[in-house]
């Protein structure tokens, strides 16, 4: 009897969870549904939930979106990698080295987060053009990491400063230097936060539009957001094309999220940071 109640409570929660999901994801669900309606229907006076006429015309040129999809994927993955490579050591240093100017450093890193991207755009464009980084994946990875690196540091510093000093001391007593301590003790302990940082850095790059627009000057590199934007006109907009391309952008994102989810949910287990 007890087991029955617990199980049905579980399914009840699942139902509530799905309801929450449907409400919150409604806009995206509609993007997918509407990608199957003709562009003319987007101008109908009353928007309809289910396409009145079903069509695949919006997907007719979809093969041309494979390049942009891969470009976006490469940029996002390398952005996450670079953010971790730079961010993890920095977060460790700021969390445990007890430098007197840590507060100032944290302040400077936080302050980078308040800079509106549009204000960075022009100077960064000029710098990148001098360094030959325009129209390159490397340039976009660096620019996108501008969001990922500070985020990683802030998040990981918060988690790493929660780790008891005794863990580190034990590693030192075993003869490990700071780098080894970081990679063999601290990183495994904070892995869920690290995956979260990587995921968010990835997301910043995945959704980026500003850098794609400003740091590309000759159309050789076209991330997905830029290729979606090309459907938006000064006088008219190809809504059908936008919806179809957006749907293509959603699918890998969904797979990634569901796939990476359990690494986030592992969390910092109580055992790892027990005092």
């Amino acid at each position, binding site marked *: 009897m007890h087991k029955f109640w617990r199980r049905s409570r579980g*399914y009840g*929660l699942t139902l509530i969870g799905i309801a929450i999901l449907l409400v919150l994801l409604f806009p995206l669900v*509609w993007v997918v549904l*509407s990608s199957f309606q003709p562009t003319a229907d987007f101008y109908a006076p009353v928007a309809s939930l289910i396409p009145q006429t079903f069509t695949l015309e919006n997907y007719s040129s979809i093969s041309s979106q494979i390049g942009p999809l891969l470009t976006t994927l490469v940029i996002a993955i390398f952005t996450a990698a670079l953010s971790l490579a*730079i961010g993890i050591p920095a977060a460790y240093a700021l969390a445990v080295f007890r430098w007197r100017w840590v507060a100032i450093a944290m*302040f400077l890193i936080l302050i980078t987060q*308040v*800079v509106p991207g549009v*204000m960075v755009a022009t100077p960064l464009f000029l710098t990148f053009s001098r360094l030959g980084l325009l129209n390159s994946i490397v340039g976009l990875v660096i620019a996108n990491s501008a969001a990922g690196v500070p985020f990683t540091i802030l998040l990981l510093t918060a988690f790493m400063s929660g780790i008891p000093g005794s863990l580190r001391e034990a590693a030192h007593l075993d003869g490990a230097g700071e780098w080894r301590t970081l990679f063999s003790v601290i990183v495994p302990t904070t892995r869920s936060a690290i995956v979260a940082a990587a995921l968010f850095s990835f997301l910043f790059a995945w959704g980026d539009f500003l850098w794609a627009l400003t740091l590309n000057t000759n159309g050789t590199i076209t991330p997905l957001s830029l290729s979606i934007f090309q459907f938006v006109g000064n006088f008219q907009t190809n809504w059908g094309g936008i919806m179809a391309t957006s749907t293509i952008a959603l699918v890998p994102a969904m797979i990634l999220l569901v796939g990476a989810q359990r690494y986030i949910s592992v969390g910092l287990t109580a055992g790892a940071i027990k005092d």
Partner: protein
Amino acid sequence: MRPRRSSYQRRAALMRLLFIVPVAVFLALVFGYPIGFNLWLTFQSFDLVSMISGVSEFVGLDNITAVLADPNFASAARNTAIFTVASIAIQFVIGMALALFFYNVFPLSKAIRALLVLPWLVPSIVATTAWRFIFKDPSGFANQLLGVVGIPPVHWLTSSDTALVSVIIINIWIGIAFNLVLLHSGLQSVPVDRYEAAQLDGAGYWQRFRHVTLPALGPVIAVLLVLGFVYTLKQFDLIWTLTQGGPGNSSQLLSTWSYTLSFNSNAFGQGAAVADFLFLASAIIIVVYTLVQRKQSNA
């Protein structure tokens, strides 16, 4: 004469600096130079002509006084304050509620929670396209829903009374995922035995939340709010793609106004001056945050 030990210590200190050299170089390139450039622009008569000729004049505080004298400044500052506070407060509450809900483990809970992150993941242009049709005037989905309960249609994005509210709603929608992930991650780190101890003491759900969960989440919440603050303060894509600050200036924020001044009116100095005000506002919040944090870690 210093003891020999100190050279070893100095070497160790230098080794430690290696941990932050990459980040220092990176931040100087991506932020240091642009911020310096922006500050310099604030005091220059920089326009399209200067961009190619490289010639501009020092104009003192002219750009700042021009911006302050502009009637648009007050409204953009007010809109930014409302936008930021409302967005953060509401997305935090919803994010917390969802994080607590998903603290329960039930069938599919992980997959559902994962999918909830999608609004954050999609390029903003996808999100805003969808919302454009939800808020479509007069018969988008939002008005259809209101019609069911007998409320007359609202001109969501096309009225100066509701445009700001509409973009706030969308910004909250985007920000929920961010709050949910961090708070949920934080909840996992609250030691279960503290809950058990509180339960033995006869604490109810609300009391356990107040006295165990919230304090334990302290650092995460602080990071969340500060980051939420700066991200919201500079939110740009969303407004730019949906309303461009309009109609009129009713959804104009400091960030979009700065962009308009720089890139549409070609008044780069004035745009830079507005961006300076954004720095200033954020800097104040961040100073408070660092001071509080320092006090706590010293305590």
